[in-house]
């Protein structure tokens, strides 16, 4: 018998608490699969965001630290600087990374910190019940944009990947999506490349992943994947946004 698909080693057996159909579950699994495939489970340390994934420490079967809201890149920097031969990643939501934690991610990227960020962009604050995120789309209804997000009042959503790509220290920046199986597989390849970028000491790497929050979007999980494809992808183009020359050889 050959195992085609099973629970990765880098996840614990704990059932996930995420809502039905939530993208976090898929993304957790992808990160764990990559860790398994690279054989780095025993030398990987991750950070949890404040957000729905705050208890990711219970799911990832690697050493984990919960960071204060938005500070994951700084926490990861602290870890990586004292343990330079370990693999360090941050797992962050769009509120965590693009709102309160913007300074930290920009500076980790600018420093070319040898860490990898998994950035889950679900265009909303999931954990706190559906408030606007910096990545919420224009017109999107959230509990803090009850009349729809308006450019004049709340400004336009931030394209994090493109913004960070302007920094020299950020050498691998990709935007992927988990709304269907094909893109799930692409996302996994990007995550792998990001970790490899770190393993080869090239610089900072980040994969932005468009993900669903069926609960706070008020949609069924299947509708949510469609909403993502129809609304998010046009504003957030997918692909490898930046592959610095140094990284091009990898993979």
């Amino acid at each position, binding site marked *: 018998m050959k195992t085609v698909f099973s629970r990765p080693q880098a996840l*614990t057996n704990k059932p996930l608490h995420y809502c039905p159909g939530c993208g976090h579950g898929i993304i957790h699994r992808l990160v764990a699969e990559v860790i398994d495939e690279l054989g780095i*489970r*025993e*030398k*990987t*340390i991750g*950070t*949890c965001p404040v957000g729905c994934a*705050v*208890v990711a*420490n*219970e799911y*990832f*079967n*690697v*050493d*984990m*630290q*919960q*960071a*204060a809201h938005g*500070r994951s890149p*700084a*926490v*990861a*920097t*602290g*870890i990586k*600087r*004292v*343990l330079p031969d*370990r693999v360090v990643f941050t797992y962050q939501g769009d509120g965590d990374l693009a709102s309160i934690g913007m*300074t*930290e991610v*920009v*500076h980790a990227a600018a420093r070319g910190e040898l860490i990898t960020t998994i950035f889950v962009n679900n265009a909303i604050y999931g954990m706190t019940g559906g408030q606007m995120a910096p990545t919420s789309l224009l017109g999107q209804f959230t509990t803090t944009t009850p009349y729809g997000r308006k450019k004049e009042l709340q400004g336009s959503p931030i394209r994090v990947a493109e913004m960070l790509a302007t920094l020299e220290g950020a050498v691998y920046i990709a935007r992927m999506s988990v709304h269907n199986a094909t893109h799930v597989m692409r996302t996994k390849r990007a995550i792998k490349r990001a970790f490899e970028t770190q393993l080869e000491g090239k610089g900072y790497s980040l994969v932005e992943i468009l993900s669903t929050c069926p609960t706070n979007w008020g949609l069924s999980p299947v509708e949510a994947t469609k909403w993502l494809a129809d609304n998010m992808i046009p504003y957030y183009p997918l692909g490898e946004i930046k592959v610095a020359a140094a990284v091009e050889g990898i993979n």
Partner: protein
Amino acid sequence: MVRKKVLMKGNEAIGEAAIRAGCQAFFGYPITPQSELPEYLARRMPEVDMIFLQAESELAAISMVYGAAGAGARVMTSSSSPGISLKQEGISMLAGADLPAVIVNIMRGGPGIGGIQPSQADYFQATRGGGHGDYRHLVLAPASIQELADLTWEAFALADQYRNPVLILGDGMLGQMMEPVLLPEEPPPLVDKPWATTGAKDREHNEIYTLHMGMEDLEKHNQRLAKKWEQIAREQVRYDKFMLDDAEIVIVAFGIASRVARRAIRMAREVGIKAGLLRPISLWPFPTAAIAEVAKQARAFLVVEMNLGQMIEDVRLATGGLVPVELFSKITIVPNPKEILQSLCSLARRTGCKIDEAAIKEESA
């Protein structure tokens, strides 16, 4: 090799003592009047193959400290008052996650941007926890450059021993002034950190966390932490006595203010006032019992602080209404021994303490 004294600036003495205490990483952000500390370490840490990193902010610095402490390193950050305010969430995180770390606050005047003159106005913040939730950390308040070095060294030991942050609280003058110092040589013994996130090799994965979802979980967690802090409170009270044996008036003062108070006490003795000093070295835990003991014999207390009156609450809590406790307060000016002397005289007269009025006349003549 004979250990030799060197003349050092307070900020630099902290830096060198930290290195000798085995500090593996420093993360900080510049701010007057403590910038010489990061600057010193920027030079020295690479020489000893250790980490110096200027963080993008105080928030980032304290979070880097959290990460590095969680990864098992001896680690330090420093700042001055406004920057310490920004670290409050992070300090609460460190305390909640049982992480050892050394934090230095070289205080300046506030509130807001305030000024860069020395002050002791962060006493409440330091001892009551400016951050949210119940937590405690040791607060060590040196009064000389030698003590600055010694307590820095010890702060690392205590942080590891209790898995708790330790705060060194000094003021701008201590940071800037120079005195001879005999530096520590050997680092405190390393302690095992099986809980550290160093990679889950040949063991279960480790988790550093502060979220406790269930009401009962969080309650239990807090009760456990409370036990630890009770233990520290029992074991780590530090203070110094000066001319207390026969003192009728007891000055309580810490840090630089205590130095000036000593001078005032000598002057007071010359005019027949039996004054003495109890100098808290650990501000938390506070030397409550020692003060209560002294209160039995004293007729009055004078609390000398460079703020609007903060430590005085702890002194009053300790004396429990037994004797009058008065305040001599400057906020961002190091007080002048003569002014303190005047307060001592006035207090002595009002509380019927011995005083040699003739000598006073002579003095002012």
